[in-house]
């Protein structure tokens, strides 16, 4: 009986498992295999030659290849951390605002917030590159009205990456607000009524009811925000080209430059594997932290 059950389960799972194997696992394994090879992306896989860990040594070495990779890795980490740190609290704050049924214009605000997520990145990049323009940009003109001198925004290595982070937060926060609202709807209203009877004020209700019960939603939001941020490509390719001085050169853009533009497929694959491993470590750490909190 169990054997028949297993066989039918296997048959039913086979199509999905096969598709996942072909389109997800196989490319991942191929990338890992290529990271140990010396291979040009313009030649067949058969021309790849095994070089062991040389690609890894190169990307963490002192040469320009290593320097550029390490800078791109750090830039990606900063971009991801800042994006998550800004997006999550803002999405909860906006979610709380929009979720209040008695607030006038709540529906309109919800629509406006989500609409930024629907705007194509090419349009966002074009508009924001003009907003940030040092000489003619509206942002600098507004700062000038309150006596603040022109800011370089995208033209300085100190502020270029942060400027791209703000662009990302502006575009993504609406989507995460919708997730936060979904989390808020799962909290029973009776808990707030009981808390009110016990004399809890609004902050205490948020601190001891809303936040703990939104932990799962926030964990999901954090994972998605991290994955989205790590994959950042378009604003860099469209606005800054990784500059100035490599300050916005993030890993996806750098891998494209190395792997496709320079056709160094082995090096590009080694970089992609490092990016994948970093992402796995961060997401696993996040889940481990959340599980520990749950046990407490």
């Amino acid at each position, binding site marked *: 009986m169990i054997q028949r059950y297993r066989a039918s389960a296997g048959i039913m799972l086979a199509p999905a498992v096969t598709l996942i194997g072909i389109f997800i696992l196989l490319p991942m394994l191929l990338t890992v295999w290529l990271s140990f090879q010396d291979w040009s*992306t313009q030649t067949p896989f058969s021309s790849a030659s095994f070089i062991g860990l040389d690609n890894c040594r190169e990307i963490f070495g002192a040469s320009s290849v290593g320097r550029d990779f390490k800078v791109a890795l750090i830039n990606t980490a900063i971009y991801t951390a800042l994006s998550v740190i800004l997006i999550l609290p803002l999405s909860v704050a906006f979610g709380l605002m929009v979720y209040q049924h008695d607030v006038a214009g709540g529906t309109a605000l919800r629509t406006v917030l989500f609409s930024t997520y629907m705007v194509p990145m090419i349009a966002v990049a074009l508009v924001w590159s003009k907003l940030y*323009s040092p*000489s003619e940009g509206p942002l600098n003109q507004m700062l000038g009205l309150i006596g603040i001198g022109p800011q370089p925004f995208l033209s300085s290595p100190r502020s270029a990456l942060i400027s791209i982070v703000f662009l990302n937060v502006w575009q993504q926060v609406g989507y995460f607000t919708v997730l936060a609202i979904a989390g808020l709807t799962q909290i029973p209203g009776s808990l707030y009524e009981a808390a009110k009877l016990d004399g809890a004020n609004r902050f205490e209700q948020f601190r001891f009811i809303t936040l703990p019960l939104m932990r799962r939603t926030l964990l999901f939001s954090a994972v998605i925000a991290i994955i989205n941020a790590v994959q950042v490509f378009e604003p860099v390719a469209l606005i800054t*080209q990784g500059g100035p*001085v490599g300050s916005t050169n993030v890993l996806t853009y750098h891998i494209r430059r190395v792997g496709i*533009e320079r*056709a160094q497929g082995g090096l590009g694959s080694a970089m992609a594997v490092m990016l994948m491993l970093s992402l796995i470590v961060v997401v696993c750490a996040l889940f481990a932290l959340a599980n520990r909190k749950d046990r407490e």
Partner: protein
Amino acid sequence: MSFAWTSKLALAAGLAILPATAWAQSVNISYLTHWSPETVALLEAAAKDYAKTNPDVSVTVRAVPFGDLLTTLRSQGGGSDGPTIGGIYDLWLPELARDKLVAPAPDAVASEVKASWPAGITSAASVGGTLYGIPNEIDVYALNYNKALFKQAGIAAPPKTWDEFKDAAKKLTNKEAGQQGFGMINSWAAGVVHPFASLLVSNGGELVKDGKPALDSPQATQTFQLYEDLIKSGASVPAMATADANTTGPFLDNFVSGKTGMIIMANWWESALKTGMGSKFADIATAPIPVGPSGDKPHSISYSWMTVVNANAGAAEQKAAWDFLAWLNNPKSGKNGASAMSDILMSMGILPSRLSDIDAHKDKLGSEFLSGYVSVLTDAKPFPVVPGGQEFSESLQQTIEALQYGQVSAKDAQATAQADATAILERAAK
């Protein structure tokens, strides 16, 4: 056989035969470029002219930003469905030829090119003696300066030496007005490296000598030092000189709006300057690159562009592509003995490289703006075309930008640039 069956068979035969005769004759080819929509329209018009005598060939033009051109060629050129023709920068040719992405020119085309183009330009379109592309444009760098700003600053003539250049840059700088003396571009590899290389060769130095980097020379030391001096004196403000994917951005904005006194830029910017400045374009003049303390006379950097054919395209497509390119670059396809290609190039202020085209456009090449470029062409040195050249350019760009933003000293920048270049060129040569 029933009537119904006879009708079905006749219909099937008709459907099979009629389009097959048409398909057998028509060839579709595509042309990948980074030109602006206005220039693409001119190329499309030329393709229509070509179709009048070649109705069986259909040419489609595709344009991508300059920053995506090489990536598009590499990612799509590996298959037969990729672009049939591509406009490429000569620096990319050695690696595209090595990776068999571009096809050698047929003998007839190669003979025509060798007979009608200067030898230096032909060699830049060749690898190992084999011609891979039809050269079309040559670009050279010169000093562009704003005459109105020069007049305001009391400067009578463009600088001829580095001392005069530094002095002019200082006089043109007005921090209160947000004005810089010399615009030093960043965030675009060729835009950063070419002006630097122009100053280097005008100081008697070279980027690459006998296939090896020569950035450790005393002339290079002086060039790195010049950059550091300009930055430290405040005559050059890097934050005013970033470029974007379309090679525009604040660098162009500040020059066209009169916030930058001088830049070192190539002739092809004429159309961008005209569009940005309107009637004020008349304020812009061209002068040779100032001569450094170790230089003998003004020199600058030149580079060329060419059209290549996808080696993975079908035989019929390749044949049609070479035929179209031969027509496009032929003196009979344009106006007054010029090729259609040169007419398109001249609309952007780009110098054509075919000898007959230079002659046909003599009048326009004598304009105040372009004549300055034509005059420096004789002493211009070609940008070194070597395997690994693009990576070398991008690496040098990073080092120069680090110097511009004060992250490294001139001495450290020079040492880093030489070490990186050595490693990159050695690896690429293997």
